[in-house]
């Protein structure tokens, strides 16, 4: 990261991968208790680029390649975090949570509660999400709802490099466990079909983006599109298409799932009266249902139409591009959902 030095202020852009690495490097320079461990985070720089440069600067003691033993090293992160360290640990694909979930949801997320707040577990679990590139049903899931459902861990999902850097810095400094879920299509790795809109101007100095605050990515009056991660970019494209029809859509980027900024969503829907939730995670029992419930429980009367969701169908993710692309959310589906909403 040493060569990402000064350009004229405000013009320098970063990919999310670089933004994560830069935030990590800055925190590692400032705090010797911060360290990184996971599979291929060392000399390789992370399969998704988010620890690139760290090994060269900080060495193998603080940027540790682990055995393929998620149960052991995530469990170890819990132990280290409880003993004064601030580990950043990587679960390479969120799909792999099945081999190590106990360390995550039974220990990382609960030890603070079990100690009545006396044991802090200040760790970051960073993990990649999302598909769209035919990696099949065990390497393409989002699972946002799965993690957000379980109490005791904060969950953040950035949609661009600016937020990724600020959320990563906030996550590392947080005294609670934070799950940092980054979507592969936003990483700036060309081979994953990079979303250009995620590579944005990113300040060089250290800063935080508050965990638990959504952002209005586009202001509008007619319909609220709520999403997170890659879905935000689908929404922005849909908003552009709707704009050509004379419809002024607002786009809310949740950025955090835990805590969830219900207020920003409610305020937007109170203004527009229409809600479409876009989620690449599975349709049922997840983020999309929770967002709709947050509005409906609060003020049903503000809704001019039944809310809709554009989410991943309740099926394992298929390999064949024809099937996978058919199942994924996209801008056209969001526009269609709006048209259906208006025809009822």
């Amino acid at each position, binding site marked *: 990261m040493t060569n990402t030095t000064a350009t004229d202020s405000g013009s320098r852009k970063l990919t999310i991968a670089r933004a994560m690495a830069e935030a990590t490097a800055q925190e590692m320079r400032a705090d010797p208790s911060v360290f990184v461990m996971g599979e291929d985070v060392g000399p390789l720089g992370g399969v998704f680029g988010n620890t690139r440069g760290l090994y060269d600067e900080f060495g193998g003691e603080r940027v540790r390649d682990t055995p393929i*033993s998620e149960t052991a090293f995530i469990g*170890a992160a819990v*132990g280290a975090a409880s003993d004064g360290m601030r580990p950043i640990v990587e679960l390479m694909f969120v799909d792999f949570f099945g081999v190590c979930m*106990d360390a995550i949801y039974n220990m990382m997320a609960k*030890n603070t509660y079990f*100690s009545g707040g*006396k044991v802090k577990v200040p760790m970051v679990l960073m993990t990649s999400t999302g598909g769209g590139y035919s990696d099949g049903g065990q390497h393409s899931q989002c699972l946002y709802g799965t993690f957000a459902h379980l109490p005791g861990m904060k969950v953040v999902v950035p949609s661009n490099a600016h937020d990724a850097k600020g959320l990563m810095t906030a996550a590392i400094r947080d005294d609670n466990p934070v799950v940092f879920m980054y979507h592969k299509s936003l990483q700036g790795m060309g081979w994953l079909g990079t979303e250009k809109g995620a590579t944005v101007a990113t300040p060089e100095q250290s800063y935080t983006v508050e965990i638990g605050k959504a952002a209005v990515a586009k202001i509008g009056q007619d319909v609220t599109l709520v999403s997170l991660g890659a879905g935000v970019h689908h929404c922005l494209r849909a908003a552009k298409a709707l704009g050509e029809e004379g419809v002024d859509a607002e786009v809310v980027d949740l950025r955090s799932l835990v805590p969830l900024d219900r207020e920003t969503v409610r305020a937007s829907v109170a203004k527009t009266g229409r809600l479409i939730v876009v989620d690449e995670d599975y349709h049922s029992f997840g983020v999309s249902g929770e967002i709709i419930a947050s509005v409906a429980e609060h003020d049903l009367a503000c809704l001019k139409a039944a809310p809709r969701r554009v989410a991943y169908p309740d099926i394992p993710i298929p390999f064949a591009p024809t099937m996978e692309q058919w199942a994924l959310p996209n801008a056209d589906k969001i526009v269609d959902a709006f048209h259906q909403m208006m025809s009822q």
Partner: protein
Amino acid sequence: MQPTNDQRLWMYRQMVTSRHLEERIEALYMEGKTPVFNMAKGPIPGEMHLSNGQEPCAVGVCAHLDAEDVVVATHRPHHIAVAKGVDLNAMVAEIFGKASGLSGGRGGHMHIFDADVNFSCSGIIGESLGPAAGAALSRKMQGKPGVAVAFLGEGAANQGAFHEALNLAAVWKLPVVFVIEDNAWGISVAKQASTAVPRNDLRASAYNMPGVHVADNDVEGVFTAAGEAIARAREGEGPTLIEIETSRLAGHFMGDGEDYRPEGEKEGLQQRDPIPRYRQMLIEAGLLDEAADTELVGEARERVEAAIRFAQQSDFLPPEAALETVFV
């Protein structure tokens, strides 16, 4: 490595304390649960895993540990907590679910956390090893003194977490000791029916670390094995795996009919109860006589009784306190 006379008496005192605690908990636990056994009833609701018979494992290891050392224990944690120096009043209050408990009653008997003496546990089998390895890593990285010890049952040696953590600890040469309390039973399944090797310490060779076996629930055998392993860890020579042949004198949990045990096994184990055996040994060694024993036992019991009174006299937190301390 042999214990000093002070260490011998310390170990005996901790064993007596732990046993009396378990016997009192057993009696209190059954209040409100007869004639119909309803786990939700009585002053101590929920599951209860007593440690009677396994005290040598706790005291023989913890005799070598200070408050700064880390211990991660199991779903059966009381004897280890006593030996590690967990605040007894606050622990008993936690077992009762009271406000004065270690977590105000949010954790309960399987989730004992006392940060002052670096003690924690998990109710999930095999999940003590990863956090202990991580605490050891923390000490190594920070250059801070202290080692970590993970306790586990023999059944946990068939969990993936066991094998992953042993490999990780060995490949990173961490200052950690893994202590298997082999009580021969995983609830109702006998060790020989579940485990492909007769002794789990043999598995240490697969992870390039020393494996040590302690037979016959021998207090001083545990002391020696643990002392050497902990010294190795302190000197930066890496992890050790110890398996202790211990005995579970109670059921897996309270209410266990123990019909799975072979005829006469329980009686045999009780005849080999490690506490009277160790008392006899101390008497024969001239460290203890009847009067001194009576005094020591009386003091230990009173300490337990005081903790129980403390717990009983404590209030519960208001129910809505359940919402607090999810995050700090």
